[in-house]
């Protein structure tokens, strides 16, 4: 008996799934074949993400080390490549503490809940041509919905830990994440409008000109928003290791801590993958049908490098400043972007209601100009915050005067 997958199934676009499904379906009942094929795909994706996480922890530590003129991990394996394994073994052998007075169920549920959104987001990212696990037609919406689940885990961690530092971290994290959802959604709206599709493969295919140029403001807002959601510098208030030590995961140890860390790094990978897909034309490049994965990985590496670079350079903002940055600056420029983009689309698109490559270039020029104007105006407006109110006296007072005065 052979099983046929319905063409409107969400997993129909995944060739690996179909192949395993067909293979298993020739011997097993259809529902079992469906589960087996799903498990196979899940296995590959989950392990792929975790391996990528391991590589990222190594790469981030190594890069940070080099940014700081240090060597970074170099003890295990060539260039310290086995460092993540060593970390994992170490964390596995640590005692798995649950603090006294903690809400055990919630406390132990947090690592799982942290890991979940990270893995779920990967499902819709096309990392080569036709290679998404499930090419959802509402991909962008799905990403936004799933990635906000992290808030829940952070708040649960902070609340259940019975630790005031953790509570501080959770309160900060929730405040930041909630306020950053709005500009992020608005920025992606512009992308979706230009692409004319919510499916991520649709967005990639629409990028004859990378949306990096067509939607620069959206890219900026999305990058800032995701780094805030991922607790990365300069928005890492929820962890704030110099202030609230480790924030919401202060009480986690052993493998639970490892999972939380892994989900953070995994979140960075998936967020970068989303940025690559939405703004850097995903797998597009020369010979995209064969080398799509290579272009994707290169672009992913570039975005990750930028994240690490920023992390290595900047101090942290205060919570209220981050919120002000979100509500006053990011929200307004994303609204401007939305308005500009919709007007441009209204004017530019032809009778067949689609944008040509030439139209995209025109939009890119206009949007770059708008972005520069936004930056200038915002800089002028916020100058009062940044400028020296009264510059410190340039080393004027001399000691002889003081001595005479005495």
């Amino acid at each position, binding site marked *: 008996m052979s099983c046929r997958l319905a063409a409107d199934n969400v997993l129909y676009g995944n060739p690996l799934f179909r192949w395993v499904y067909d293979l298993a379906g020739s011997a097993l009942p259809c529902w079992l074949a469906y589960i087996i094929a799903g498990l196979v795909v899940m296995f590959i994706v989950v392990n792929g993400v975790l391996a990528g996480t391991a590589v990222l922890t190594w790469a981030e530590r190594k890069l940070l080390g080099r940014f700081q003129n240090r060597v970074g991990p170099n003890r295990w394996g060539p260039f310290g490549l086995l460092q993540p394994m060593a970390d994992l073994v170490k964390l596995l052998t640590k005692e798995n503490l649950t603090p006294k007075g903690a809400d055990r169920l919630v406390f132990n549920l947090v690592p799982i809940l942290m890991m979940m959104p990270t893995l779920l987001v990967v499902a819709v990212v096309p990392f080569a041509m036709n290679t998404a696990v499930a090419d959802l037609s509402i991909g962008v919406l799905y990403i936004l919905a799933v990635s906000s689940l992290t808030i829940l885990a952070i708040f649960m961690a902070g609340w259940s830990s019975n630790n005031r530092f953790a509570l501080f971290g959770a309160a900060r994290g929730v405040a930041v994440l909630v306020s950053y959802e709005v500009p992020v959604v608005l920025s992606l709206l512009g992308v979706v409008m230009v692409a004319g599709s919510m499916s991520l493969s649709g967005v990639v295919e629409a990028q004859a000109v990378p949306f990096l140029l067509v939607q620069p403001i959206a890219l900026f807002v999305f990058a800032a928003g995701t780094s805030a959601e991922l607790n990365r510098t300069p928005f890492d208030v929820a962890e704030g290791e110099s202030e609230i030590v480790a924030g919401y995961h202060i009480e986690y140890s052993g493998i639970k801590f490892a999972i939380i860390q892994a989900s953070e790094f995994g979140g960075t990978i998936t967020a970068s993958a989303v940025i690559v897909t939405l703004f850097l034309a995903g797998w597009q490049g020369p010979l995209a049908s064969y080398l799509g994965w290579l272009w994707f990985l290169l672009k992913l590496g570039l975005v990750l490098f930028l994240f690490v670079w920023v992390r290595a*350079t900047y101090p942290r903002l205060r919570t209220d400043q981050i919120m002000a940055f979100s509500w006053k600056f990011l929200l307004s420029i994303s609204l401007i972007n939305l308005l500009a983009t919709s007007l441009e689309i209204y004017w530019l698109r032809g009778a067949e209601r689609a944008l040509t490559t030439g139209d995209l270039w025109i939009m890119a020029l206009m949007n770059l100009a708008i972005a520069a104007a936004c930056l200038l105006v915002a800089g002028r407006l916020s100058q009062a915050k940044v400028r020296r109110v009264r510059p410190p006296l340039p080393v004027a007072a001399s000691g002889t005067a003081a001595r005479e005065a005495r």
Partner: protein
Amino acid sequence: MYGLQMVRGLLVTLKNLTRKPFTVQYPEERLPQHPRFRGEEFVWYEERCTGCASCAKYCPLGIIKIVTSPSGTAVPQGDKYRLEVFDIEIARCMFCGLCVEACPYDALFMGSGFEQGRYSRRDLVIPIQQLRESDKRPSTWFRPQLEEAKYNPHLGQPVDWKQAGRESWRWHQREKAGLRLDSHPADSNVPDETEKPTQANALPEGPVQGAR
């Protein structure tokens, strides 16, 4: 313009990414130490020591333990006191070097090493036996005579007791024995019954070993 300074900051970190690391991977690589480095393994020359315990008195922590007994033999042979115990408890030592500064006969020197880690504090005592037998690679700290000879303990050359002092060892040996220079004018007839330098008289007073 707003944000410009942040971009300049990014350039600084990028520039440092291309630089060589300034850290040193310790067990494999080592920083060059200066000859004046005040290290852990004290260098002690029994031949020079009179057992006066100036070092013990001058130590701010009182961690040097000295027990002497009058040796019945041979005051003229330069053995006025026999040193029975000379223990330095480096667990409490802060390596200030005041003991070296206090030593009037250049018998005690700071060492040049720093790797005396032990698992127990009881092991962190340098007993007299170890002081007798260890390599004599003294630090040049507070010892201008070694500095003038451009001695570097980190090159591995030990220094003989005769070359470690600021004066001629022969003068010193008689001074230690409580004899005055003018009472024994003949240098060559000093009998020497200390353990190592039995043929000391035959050795010329050359430059310090280990000089670069």
